[in-house]
């Protein structure tokens, strides 16, 4: 029996690797996506089941305990509301990276100093990436959960300090590869990597979270791939590379959507650049009541809703669905324009709106949405700010100049639902609010949309 498993295991791992690739391939479109999840989970269960039959396992006691604990934590983490998905994702990056770092550490103490140089190199990379991703992800979790200040924390010489810490950690790793017997160096090596993870996230603000979460996703994947090299397990190498390339692609998409480089996100301390006193002129924004907004929406035939992080914070997505229903019934065409970095992680707005039962074919990507705005009667901006700032197109002095934005100002009327006139995350004034075709509706997104819906419904019963 055990001999058969020994022969079959590599084939089972190969099947699992194929199932992961199919899972991601089928995720390319909604109709096939669920099939992908089933196949991926099936491959995973097969691989885990076959591994459990390995003859080298002396006892199942601790494995069973760990399965029970992991399941007991994993299920509630899967049941979190969609608004909390960015935090949850940060936390799961931390768990994944921790697993890799712990296995790497265990392998070091089991095998050093009689460990091959290449395996030790992979092990050092696994532990370095794993450890820094653990603390960095926990910091990102803290910021997203608002346990920590979401504003960037910056000080002079910060980048020099951070890079020195990373340099020291990397140097310790190199020494360990050359001299695996230097066991005294292993704990400080881990310590430096953990410290670097904390320092890496301190200067990063809330609006950069989509990029950072994607980057941490890539790191967690790479540490899993490195673990595959240490254990000479090709399934781990494949799964880790898939995870790593996914994180890399998402990071690149997020960076492009903000017209920024990785270096700028990681070391820029964005959001600290307090806007240069934008002319002393006192411009006046026109404000309106929710009832006025209802009046405007009623007479519209095409409405584009632009959701942002403010909608998530106010948990307004279900009220938005009511608005969608009432307008659609009245014959108004309603679509949703989704900026790639709207919210706190890639795709955040899409899952929120899907949760509220808004059909996904009404969710429009940036380029298509920008073709729609000139024909739209109303653009309804719900808790989005910087992604609608026309200064990104025209004002070369603006910190966000060059960032692709949603051209809401090109629609006939712009309704902006916002708590106050305070500038957004980046501390940049938004000229959109002072345009002639813009009306500001001040208040919490959920409350305002609720009142608009009430006003529309009241009219409908006359």
């Amino acid at each position, binding site marked *: 029996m055990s001999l058969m498993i020994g022969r079959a295991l590599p084939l089972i791992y190969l099947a699992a690797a194929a199932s992961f690739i199919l899972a991601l391939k089928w995720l390319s479109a909604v109709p096939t996506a669920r099939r992908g999840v089933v196949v991926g*989970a099936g491959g995973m269960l097969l691989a885990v089941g076959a591994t459990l039959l390995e003859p080298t396992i002396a006892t199942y006691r601790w494995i069973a305990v760990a399965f029970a604990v992991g399941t007991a934590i994993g299920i509630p983490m899967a049941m979190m509301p969609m608004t909390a998905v960015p935090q949850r994702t940060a936390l799961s990056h931390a768990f994944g990276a921790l697993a890799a770092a712990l296995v790497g550490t265990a392998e070091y103490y089991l095998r050093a100093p009689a460990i091959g140089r290449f395996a030790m190199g992979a092990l050092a990379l696994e532990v370095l990436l794993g450890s820094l991703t653990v603390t960095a992800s926990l910091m990102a979790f803290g910021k997203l959960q608002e346990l920590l200040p979401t504003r960037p924390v910056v000080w002079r010489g910060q980048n020099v300090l951070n890079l020195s810490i990373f340099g020291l950690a990397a140097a310790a790793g190199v020494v360990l590869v050359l001299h695996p017997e230097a066991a005294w160096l292993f704990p400080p090596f881990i310590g430096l990597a953990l410290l670097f993870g904390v320092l890496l996230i301190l200067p990063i603000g809330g609006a950069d979270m989509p990029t950072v979460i994607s980057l941490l996703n890539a790191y967690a994947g790479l540490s899993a791939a490195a673990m595959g090299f240490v254990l000479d397990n090709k399934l781990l*190498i494949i799964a880790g590379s898939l995870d790593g390339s996914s994180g890399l692609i998402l990071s690149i998409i997020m960076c492009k959507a903000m017209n920024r480089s990785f270096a700028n996100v990681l070391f820029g301390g964005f959001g600290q650049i307090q806007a240069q006193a934008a002319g002393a002129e006192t411009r006046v924004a026109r404000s309106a009541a929710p009832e006025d907004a209802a009046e405007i929406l009623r007479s519209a035939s095409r409405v584009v809703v632009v959701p942002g992080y403010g909608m998530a914070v106010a948990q307004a997505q279900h009220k938005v669905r009511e608005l969608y229903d009432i307008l659609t019934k009245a014959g108004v065409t309603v679509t949703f324009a989704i900026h790639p970095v709207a919210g706190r992680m890639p795709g955040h707005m899409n899952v929120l709106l899907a949760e509220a039962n808004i059909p996904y074919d009404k969710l429009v990507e940036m380029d298509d949405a920008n073709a729609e705005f000139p024909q739209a009667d109303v653009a309804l901006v719900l808790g989005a700010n910087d992604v609608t700032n026309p200064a990104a197109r025209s004002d070369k002095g603006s910190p966000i100049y060059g960032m692709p934005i949603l051209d809401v100002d090109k629609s006939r009327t712009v309704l902006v639902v916002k708590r106050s006139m305070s500038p957004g995350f980046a501390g940049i004034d938004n000229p959109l609010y002072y345009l002639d075709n813009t009306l500001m509706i001040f208040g919490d997104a959920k409350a305002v949309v609720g009142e608009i819906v009430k006003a529309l419904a009241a009219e409908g019963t006359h």
Partner: protein
Amino acid sequence: MIADLETGLYVFVLATFLGLEIIRRVSPLLHTPLMSLTNAISAITVVGAIIVAGEQKTTLSTVLGTVAVACSTINLVGGYLITWRMLRMFRKSGKGT
């Protein structure tokens, strides 16, 4: 060892290119489920952790391995479950509520 290393690197490079090609095709609509699914997939690290925890070579390795199995299981169970939950929410217009 050298042959293993070479195969390993081939696997790594090819899997990365394959990953880049497949994932580029994922609709931005599904970027959040993509992240939770890749997270669940990389929880396959659990197979490495199971061996470390089960071999019982030293107390340290058993403890570290056990914690690692728990961490990976969190992502394995939680990752597939939340991806499934999210994907069930995506509906086309005119198909029930």
